[in-house]
């Protein structure tokens, strides 16, 4: 037996490490939370890491999970050992092929970070809905409960599938296991080798397609033999459980870890037993141990091999003493009379019972419950709650645990304060940080240090919120002398150590709820130890005193600044943790932290190593214990999350989610169908900006560029009559409007939303006006936010209440006036300086009151629709975009469906108008039917007519009139927008996009092109330019970016444009106007600088300019309406490349890094990029210079 090396890693790495060693072809596609498995494989392959057979596995990125599984199928059929990794919707896309792979008895293992499915809402979090959807495919299903098991089962499943030829899904809980960092025993290569069945591999090779042994597989069969053929494979499935158990036994001999298909834990004479699978097993195991120690006769059946389901093994594992069983399913099948595993257990018991020789004289009572959907917490208290339910004389047959169901009353109560002895004995720490402050990486580092330098076991789990900017992270750490079996968050009153890395959290979260009696509270603050006490909220003071907490402060930002580390506080806070917790002797800890720093940066970051060392040394001197006074002195109460005048829905539900207390929301409070109000982002005041822009109204020429570039719609312009400013706050700024063409006496104000601005500085960057005597002063300038927060907040309130100017009088084709239109997309949680959001904001300014949005999954669906709030909002008339996200892959089709529906219902409405014409008045009917709605005024007039129609319908009582009432809104023009990123448009959704382009329907497709999969972490897409580094293209993308515009132009009838708002704002504006006005498919490909480019987004506008000047990003418009007029439809809006590509490439890490890792390739790619840019220009120029062709007419000859 080999004792492996102890390492700390997460579940994804554990799975990938075995998959990599035991496979030759790995086909991947990113999807949370499984992306990391593919990334690890890609990274290892790029590093030349070898598999068991001494080759570097081929890692291929595909265009979708459907593509990945197709490639795996092909690789398997051609004799390679092949695997893939996926989750959720990705697994659903694999299902068709999984039937094939299983039907052909092909050995493979798919490793799944099991995740919820998108239904009423998308969720990236863990449960078993995805794997449960594959039950019918014929794949075996093997479940892992912990990071250690992930590594073990990855190997066991690989061995078993090879032996048994039945393919396997190896799954573990998304995030909870895939992302939990844990100290585990690594499987030595010799063990992996020993588990690989040589003969079976040889057999797999021999079954491969080969022209030397030609066969036909994949026939099409008729009624005569299909059925029998289907039955022919039964023996393989029948044998599979035995084979898996054999491999488990073999594995036990090699490692000492014995697994069973169904593993029973608990009293041999237990009367109450819980059955479940996945990470919840560990929680239940810990709880059962505790209950046993306290004299209760309970047990737990861990289901490992779920398919093929071996009823015999299942029942054999259950003690005959069992009287009541609760089966917990981490899934939901709406409308079924029980979840799948519950039914499997009942079937097993009843079949056994019906045999007449069953194990049970009387059938045990079996109840079924759902738990843990989308990573809902599953704690020992809940396990205890289920056992308590089983103790009742008449337990609920169907139940849920972990939520409060006040609607259908299925939920069980549980004791939230219940703790196991095991849990009580572990050391626990909780850290609150910002995503950007490095708290998570510091904690991962601490776990590594403790895990690898001491005998202690360590566990880390990290909770992120979904915001891209200002995201909050909570780190939950456990350390123990015994292996840790607690896959749930650290509970209230449990943490011996609470670290708050951001002082702003003091006013937002009740962090000390987590602190244990006698624990430690560490606060990063600029205030000194003797100043801090009086500034704490009252509740916090009370908790510090009542819980007798030791309280420490450190000014980590000061230390970081002085050590030259800018705002990096991770090593400083880490040093504090070690210094206070005493988990390692202080000197040793510091030595280890320094060692870790050195290992992290190595030769590549020697200056950073020095700076970190300085910071570490300075930290101890700056860490002070606060002499806690005996009395509560504070009167500060945490401010209300939302003001009293917020809408009821926001007060009752949204605010609770904002406070991070959504766990407490009962079922009845939630919408049944996933429908939420828009306009909610305004209630979440995030106060991210240290500095915000301040308008110099005297200098300003009112050009509107600041509004145009704002990624968060946090600066707005409005015009109004002077009397509208009556009662304005004292500091509210407004000046006479300079533009001509309006009635006289109008005033204009540019107003910043001080608590919503993220401080990206792009408005200042865009401002073209400088003070003549001091060119560093512009018409808009950054200034510290805190003193402005209250006065500007009041000004903002006032500004938003001023009546919007009449849209029909504004010229949407000119920026100064277009920017007076109010956006209905505001304060998205996108990255500071995001390059995508200005395009969406612009669309809503121009068309928001009539927009339907189909949004592909990705960044734009996350900042667009991730709860608690949405940036999509309403105008003063209550109109605004209606938004929905279907899937990643079907967005174009989804949007097309919207268009077709609108067209169809418009026809219906028109037919009703015709039918009711005499009753509503012929003039009105004619007006409604012949309305020209190609501008704001036309739309306004039609809305007036529709209002008149409603008025007229009031007096008519007929079914047609009632239908007309419902349909009337379709008489007003609707603007359908299909929005998504390049991952969607160029890759997974390209087929659909292409099909929609091939139709003639009036849809507006906006591709927010970041040239990489941004949301899942920067994977290469077909939009990624040559020479760029991306995940899955670590050695630089060797091929050119797909020219989507060219492909679309080829249709001839599609309006196509490429825009970059930071390079040519007017062209962007015109494009949006033209695209929307075109009565057919329009495609706008919008250059969107992204943090994944490796450049600070403060340079967003500069990067766009460079992209255009170098020819990297052509600006063009192709308008089929011109063809109809006999003109050339193509117009180039950029000049011949005038800047060397190198100047652009050297400013972005995605390109420049390649010069350090692959200088020769990088040079060649750069040369190609420059050449391509010039050639593309030349080619486009020739096309654009061609004279127009005479349009087709009746006289046009056929040949």
């Amino acid at each position: 037996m080999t004792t492996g090396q102890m390492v700390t890693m997460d579940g994804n790495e554990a799975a990938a490490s075995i998959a990599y060693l035991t496979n030759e072809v790995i086909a991947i596609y990113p999807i949370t939370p499984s992306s990391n498995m593919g990334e690890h494989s890609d990274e290892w392959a790029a590093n030349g890491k070898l598999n068991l057979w001494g080759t570097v596995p081929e890692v291929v990125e595909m265009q979708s999970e459907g593509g990945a599984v197709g490639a795996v199928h092909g690789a398997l059929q051609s004799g390679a050992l092949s695997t893939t990794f996926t989750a959720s919707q990705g697994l659903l896309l694999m299902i068709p092929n999984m039937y094939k792979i299983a039907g052909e008895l092909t050995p493979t293992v798919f490793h799944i970070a099991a995740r919820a499915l998108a239904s009423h809402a998308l969720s990236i979090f863990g449960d078993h809905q995805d794997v449960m959807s594959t039950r019918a495919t014929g794949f075996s299903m093997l479940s892992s409960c912990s990071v250690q098991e992930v590594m073990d089962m990855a190997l066991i499943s690989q061995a078993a599938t090879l032996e048994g030829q039945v393919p396997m899904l190896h799954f573990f809980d998304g995030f909870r296991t895939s992302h939990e960092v844990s100290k585990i025993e690594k499987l030595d290569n010799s063990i992996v080798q020993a588990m690989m069945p040589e003969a079976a591999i040889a057999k797999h090779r021999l079954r491969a397609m080969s022209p030397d042994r030609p066969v036909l597989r994949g026939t099409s069969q008729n009624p005569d033999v299909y059925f029998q053929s289907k039955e022919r494979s039964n023996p393989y499935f029948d044998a599979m459980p035995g084979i898996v158990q054999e491999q488990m036994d073999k594995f036990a001999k090699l490692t000492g870890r014995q697994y069973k298909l169904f593993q029973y834990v608990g009293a041999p004479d237990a009367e109450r037993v819980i059955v479940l699978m996945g990470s919840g097993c560990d929680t239940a195991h810990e709880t059962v141990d505790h209950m046993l120690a306290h004299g209760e006769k309970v047990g737990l059946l861990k289901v490992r091999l779920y398919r093929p389901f071996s009823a015999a093994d299942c029942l054999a594992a259950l003690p005959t003493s069992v009287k009541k069983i609760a089966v917990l399913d981490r899934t939901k099948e709406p409308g079924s009379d029980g979840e799948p595993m519950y039914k499997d257990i009942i079937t097993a018991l009843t079949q056994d019972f019906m045999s007449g020789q069953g194990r049970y004289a009387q059938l045990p009572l079996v109840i079924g419950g759902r738990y843990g959907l989308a990573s809902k917490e599953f704690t020992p208290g809940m396990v205890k709650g289920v056992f308590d339910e089983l103790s009742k004389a008449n337990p609920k047959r169907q139940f849920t645990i972990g939520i409060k169901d006040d609607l259908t009353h299925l939920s069980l109560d549980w004791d939230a304060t219940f703790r196991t002895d095991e849990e009580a004995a572990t050391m626990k720490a909780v850290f609150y940080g910002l995503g950007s402050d490095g708290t998570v990486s510091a904690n991962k580092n601490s776990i590594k240090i403790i895990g690898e330098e001491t005998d202690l076991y360590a566990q880390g789990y990290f909770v992120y919120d979904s915001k891209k900017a200002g995201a909050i992270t909570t780190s939950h750490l456990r350390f123990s002398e015994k292996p840790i079996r607690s896959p749930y968050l650290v509970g209230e009153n449990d943490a011996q150590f609470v670290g708050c890395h951001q002082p702003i959290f003091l006013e937002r979260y009740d962090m000390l709820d987590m602190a244990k009696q006698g624990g430690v509270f560490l606060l990063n603050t600029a205030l000194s130890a003797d100043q801090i006490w009086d500034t704490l909220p009252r509740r916090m003071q009370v908790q510090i005193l009542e819980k007798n907490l030791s309280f420490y402060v450190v000014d980590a930002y000061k230390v970081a600044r002085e050590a030259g580390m800018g705002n990096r506080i991770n090593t400083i806070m880490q040093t504090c943790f070690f210094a206070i917790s005493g988990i390692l002797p202080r000197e040793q800890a510091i030595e280890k932290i320094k060692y870790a720093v050195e290992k992290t940066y190595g030769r590549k970051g020697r200056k950073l190593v020095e700076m970190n060392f300085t910071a570490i040394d300075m930290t101890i001197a700056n860490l002070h214990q606060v002499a806690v006074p005996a009395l509560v002195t504070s009167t500060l109460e945490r401010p209300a999350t939302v003001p009293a005048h917020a809408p009821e829905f926001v007060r009752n539900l949204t605010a609770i989610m904002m406070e991070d207390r959504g766990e407490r929301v009962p079922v009845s409070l939630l919408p049944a169908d996933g429908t939420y109000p828009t306009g909610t982002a305004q209630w979440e005041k995030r106060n991210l900006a240290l500095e915000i822009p301040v308008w110099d109204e005297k200098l300003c020429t009112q050009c509107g560029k600041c509004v145009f570039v704002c990624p968060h719609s946090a600066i707005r312009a409005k015009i109004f009559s002077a009397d509208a400013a009556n009662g304005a706050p004292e500091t509210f700024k407004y000046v006479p409007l300079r533009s001509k063409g309006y009635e006289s006496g109008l005033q204009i104000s540019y107003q910043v939303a001080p608590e919503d601005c993220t401080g990206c500085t792009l408005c200042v960057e865009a401002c073209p006006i400088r003070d003549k005597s001091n060119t560093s002063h512009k018409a808009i300038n950054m200034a510290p936010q805190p003193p402005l927060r209250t006065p500007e907040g009041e000004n903002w309130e006032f500004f938003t209440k001023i009546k919007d100017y009449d849209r029909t009088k504004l010229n949407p084709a000119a920026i100064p006036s277009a920017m007076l239109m109010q956006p209905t997309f505001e304060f998205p949680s996108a990255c500071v300086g995001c390059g995508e959001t200005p395009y969406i904001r612009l669309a809503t300014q121009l068309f928001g009151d009539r927009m339907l949005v189909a949004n592909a999954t990705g960044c734009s669906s996350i900042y667009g629709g991730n709860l608690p709030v949405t940036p999509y909002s309403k105008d003063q008339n209550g109109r605004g975009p209606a938004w929905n996200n279907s899937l990643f892959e079907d967005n174009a089709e989804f949007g097309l469906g919207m268009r077709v529906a609108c067209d169809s219902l418009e026809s219906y409405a028109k037919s009703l108008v015709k039918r009711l014409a005499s009753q509503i008045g012929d003039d009105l009917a004619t007006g409604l039917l012949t309305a020209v709605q190609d501008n704001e005024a036309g739309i306004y007039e039609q809305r007036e007519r529709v209002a008149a129609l409603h008025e007229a319908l009031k007096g008519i009582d007929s079914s047609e009139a009632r239908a007309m009432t419902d349909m009337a809104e379709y008489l007003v023009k609707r603007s359908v927008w299909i929005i998504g990123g390049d991952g969607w448009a160029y890759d997974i959704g390209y087929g659909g996009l292409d099909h929609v382009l091939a139709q003639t329907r009036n849809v507006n497709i906006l591709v927010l092109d970041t040239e990489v999969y941004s949301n899942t972490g920067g994977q290469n897409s077909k939009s990624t330019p040559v020479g760029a580094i991306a995940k899955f293209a670590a050695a630089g993308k060797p091929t050119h970016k797909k020219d989507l515009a060219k492909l679309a132009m080829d249709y001839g009838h599609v309006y196509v444009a490429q825009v970059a708002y930071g390079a040519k704002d007017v062209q962007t504006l015109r494009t949006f106007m033209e695209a929307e006005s075109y009565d057919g498919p329009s495609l706008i490909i919008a250059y969107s600088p992204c943090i994944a480019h490796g450049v600070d987004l403060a340079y967003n506008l500069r990067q766009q300019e460079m992209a255009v000047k170098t020819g990297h990003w052509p600006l063009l418009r192709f308008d089929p309406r011109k063809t109809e007029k006999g003109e050339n439809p193509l117009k180039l809006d950029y000049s011949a490349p005038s800047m060397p590509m190198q100047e652009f490439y050297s400013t972005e890490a995605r390109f420049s890094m390649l010069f350090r890792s692959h200088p020769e390739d990088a040079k060649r790619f750069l040369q190609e990029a420059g050449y391509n840019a010039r050639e593309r220009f030349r080619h486009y120029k020739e096309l654009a210079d061609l004279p127009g062709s005479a349009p087709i007419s009746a006289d046009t000859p056929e040949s």
Partner: protein
Amino acid sequence: MIDLSTSYLGLTLKNPLVPSAGPLTRSLDSVKRLEDAGASAVVMYSLFEEELLKEERMLDRFITNPSLGHGEADSFFTPHPNYKSGLDAYLEQLSKIKASLSIPVIASLNGVTASGWVAHGKELQAAGADALELNVYYVAADFNQSAADVEARYVNLLKSLKQHVSIPVTMKLSSQFTSLPHFVKQLEAAGADGVSVFNRFYQPDIDLETLGLTDKIGVTSSKELLIRMRWIAVLFGKVKLSLAATGGVHTRDDVLKLLLAGADVTHLCSGLLLQGPELIGQLLDGVSAWMERREYESVAQLKGSLSQQHSSDPVAFARESYIRVLDSYTPVTKAWQ
């Protein structure tokens, strides 16, 4: 046969033409072309302190510690194992250049702070540099720093570097020292093996279109030579360290004048960029022909013969020449008037 050899930083060079740190000393190909054209040594392009730091910070921000903090992505780039830092890339290039050339290679360090980056000198030495040029590219625009503080910065950096290396070190100086001779003496005392005069600072310019600043550096012209010539002439013979003239050397006459003033070597950069490496051969031919015509035997013979020390008109290099220039706005008869 004219003996063009010269001694610089203790190295014997076959002639006084040494291409200075610039674009042509980046690639192996162009360095080879410089050697083939007759260069007696090369100064490699500079290893910039800020560039190293900037790159490390970039690496930290985007790769090592991206700290994105959202659940779906914790990074955007995976570091490639082949990734080399700017320092490693420089060292590798230095080794390659050294291995492919037979002439000495002078490596160049460019930076201004006492943060310890000069310690990299040791690695440059290990990579094969025959000597080092320390370019303290420091614009003294800090109102709190006295002239003495500025000088101390140079001296301290030099001392610090000398602790790490045993190969010769030359200091590249700016022209803006209050008392250059006194300062050079200090450098000599601190261990400098040579000085190179003068650095050219990027001069910001104003773009009237954008009302912004531009900072592109242009090529030099021979006009910039005179200030260098003066100070070489002043320093020659009064200090033992080597003297290099850099900036404005384009023609045979430029080279000769600098040698006559006392330069041990003359650096070339703009001239090479404008006319290609072949310029070196033309200059060498021209210098030889001139010397032959004048019956000079060797560079050693003419070096410094018109320095302040040896000049028949020593005041020409000092303040009085200014007065004379003002007084007699007539064509000069002597070389310096």
